[in-house]
């Protein structure tokens, strides 16, 4: 059966209101980056101890979510679930937009953001960071090609192979992102082979949460039909991904507890790390995993759109909390330069490093989110990304077609 795609009208007050809010947030983000660029990182909460701050929390979240957002398309193309095929355009679009937003934050937070051309022309191929630059650029190219195979008749016969390539590429990309931390041998928090696969599972979770929220948002906003069949399938999938994330986090900490040398770090994250312990238990575990799982699997609440949206939002907040614990918590815990010694110095050796992000860093991070959403809001207005109707009959017909 054929699915009709159509641009959204994009003339309503709601649309322009959303557009305006996002544009302001994006402008604030860019503005704070310019301010940081002018004054130097002295105006941020970052220092020589916490070298990656809130911007990295947002950037890495967006990049990880980007690859996860492509999941829906992959399920349709690679695993042949025709049911999801009407959603694969939005899936590809979100992937590109989230990655662009994340990279924007990453680049604007550089000490020398003006040297982007250097980052693009000088490569140290031993650096996983340099590989990531290539992976990100490749991701853009491949997903754009993927979208073309979906949207243009001529591209049709490439749809499967390009879809497969995109699927493989996104797995490598998330592995690469996770490995940025895995390569930091000296930092205990990142000394785990589990980090890369864990990031892949996180990406499924975060990507789908964003996808679901955006999907429901646009259909509610445009008044187009979106049936329960589709929503309930996606929300069940989200529940499974959240459970998988929880499982990986559990294994990660159990493994760390098994190695005596990591006991200090574990106690820090799990028990006495102040804000980091709070972020972990309340932010990541309760808000990010337990609560949304309870909602999604609840026989009553799990069928309500509003509650499903809340669960997706919580999963996203939990994801940001997870990034905070991983990135900031991992740095706050002091490097053990001299095992078996108590150390002190003028350079803050041996003490937990405090970090208070400035408003600039928050604005830059939110700016990245806004840019990503702005791209989506604009694209669905000018190109045919969203199916006209996804009511239960349409979905049932698709399901039958499978």
């Amino acid at each position, binding site marked *: 059966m054929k699915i009709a795609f159509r641009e959204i009208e994009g003339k309503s007050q709601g649309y322009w209101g959303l557009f305006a809010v996002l544009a302001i947030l994006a402008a604030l983000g860019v503005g704070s980056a310019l301010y940081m660029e002018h004054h130097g990182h002295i105006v941020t909460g970052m220092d020589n101890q916490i070298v990656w701050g809130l911007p990295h929390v947002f950037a890495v979240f967006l990049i990880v979510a980007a690859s996860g957002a492509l999941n829906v398309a992959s399920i349709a193309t690679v695993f042949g679930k025709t049911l999801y095929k009407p959603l694969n355009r939005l899936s590809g679009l979100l992937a590109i937009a989230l990655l662009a937003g994340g990279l924007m934050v990453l680049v604007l937070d550089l000490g020398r953001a003006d040297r982007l051309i250097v980052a693009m022309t000088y490569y140290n191929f031993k650096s996983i960071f340099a590989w990531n630059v290539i992976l990100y650029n490749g991701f853009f190219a491949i997903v754009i090609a993927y979208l073309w195979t979906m949207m243009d008749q001529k591209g049709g016969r490439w749809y499967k192979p390009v879809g497969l390539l995109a699927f493989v590429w996104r797995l490598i990309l998330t592995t690469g992102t996770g490995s940025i931390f895995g390569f930091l041998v*000296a930092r205990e928090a990142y000394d785990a082979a589990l980090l890369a696969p864990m990031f892949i599972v996180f990406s499924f979770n975060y990507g789908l949460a964003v996808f679901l929220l955006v999907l429901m948002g646009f259909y509610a906003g445009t008044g187009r039909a979106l049936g329960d069949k589709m929503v309930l399938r996606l929300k069940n999938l989200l529940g499974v991904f959240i459970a998988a994330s929880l499982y990986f986090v559990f294994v990660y900490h159990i493994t760390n507890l098994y190695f005596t040398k990591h006991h200090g770090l574990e106690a820090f994250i799990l028990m006495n790390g102040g804000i980091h312990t709070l972020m972990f238990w309340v932010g990541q575990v309760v808000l990010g995993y337990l609560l949304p799982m309870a909602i999604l699997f609840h026989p009553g609440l799990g069928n309500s759109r509003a509650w499903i949206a809340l669960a997706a939002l919580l999963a996203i907040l939990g994801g940001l909390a997870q990034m905070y614990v991983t990135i900031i918590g991992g740095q706050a815990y002091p490097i053990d330069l001299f095992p078996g010694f108590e150390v002190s110095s003028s350079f803050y050796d041996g003490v937990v490093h405090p970090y208070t992000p400035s408003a600039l860093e928050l604005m830059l991070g939110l700016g990245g989110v806004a840019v990503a959403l702005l791209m989506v809001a604009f694209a669905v207005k000018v190109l045919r990304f969203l199916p006209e109707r996804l009511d239960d009959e349409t979905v049932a017909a698709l399901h039958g077609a499978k």
Partner: protein
Amino acid sequence: MSQPVRPEDKIENGERRAFLAAGAAVAGTAIAPGVLLYGMAQAKPADQPVSAKVRWGMLIDTTKCATGCTECVTACNTENSLSGKTGPQDSQWIRKVELKNLQTGARHSLPMLCQHCEHPPCVDVCPTGASFRRADGIVLVDRHICIGCRYCMMACPYKARSLVHENLTDQNPEVPRGKGCVESCTFCVQKVDRGENTTACVEACNAAGHKAMLFGDLNDPESEIAKTVKTYASTEVRADLNLNTGVRYQGI
């Protein structure tokens, strides 16, 4: 002549002109490292090219290093135009670390600085190649290619690096530094390349009469440092990481 022209400013301007002339951004940036290396080579006596035959190293005898003494730190700050401030956002190329053995209660004091690793994690992770290791073992940051991503700061096991968080004034023209770039101890490369073959911190420690630091060529069997490490026990900090550091310690 109001302002001294820094060597790297000359390079930047030259590059910009070449860029305009060629009209190709890629060509412009691609020339930079060559120009820079040329500049470095010129800064040294012609008869002493940077060579892998040399491995500059440092040996620190913690039994001679005095608790509370910061002569090396002060000398470094003066030589390299660091402010000497110790806020969380200020650069510190060398710092004194006080240690207490949790088992025995023994106390030690020692200077901590870039260890000039033979296999430097900072160089491995640097996306642009701005962090590099010279043939003679000195690890440096090329401040014209550093994009300030701070990945090297995350990777360095010794917390040896600092980001320049604000605009700098009154700089030593021989020591290029700049806002937004990462920096660390250079083994006083400007002095080494002038043939002085010592560093400001070592000179200061000797002048203060402690003689706790020794600088020299680890590859030269006749040098004092090579002889000492051959005779007495010395260790690397975090030897388990197998980085073969150029800085070694005695007495811990």
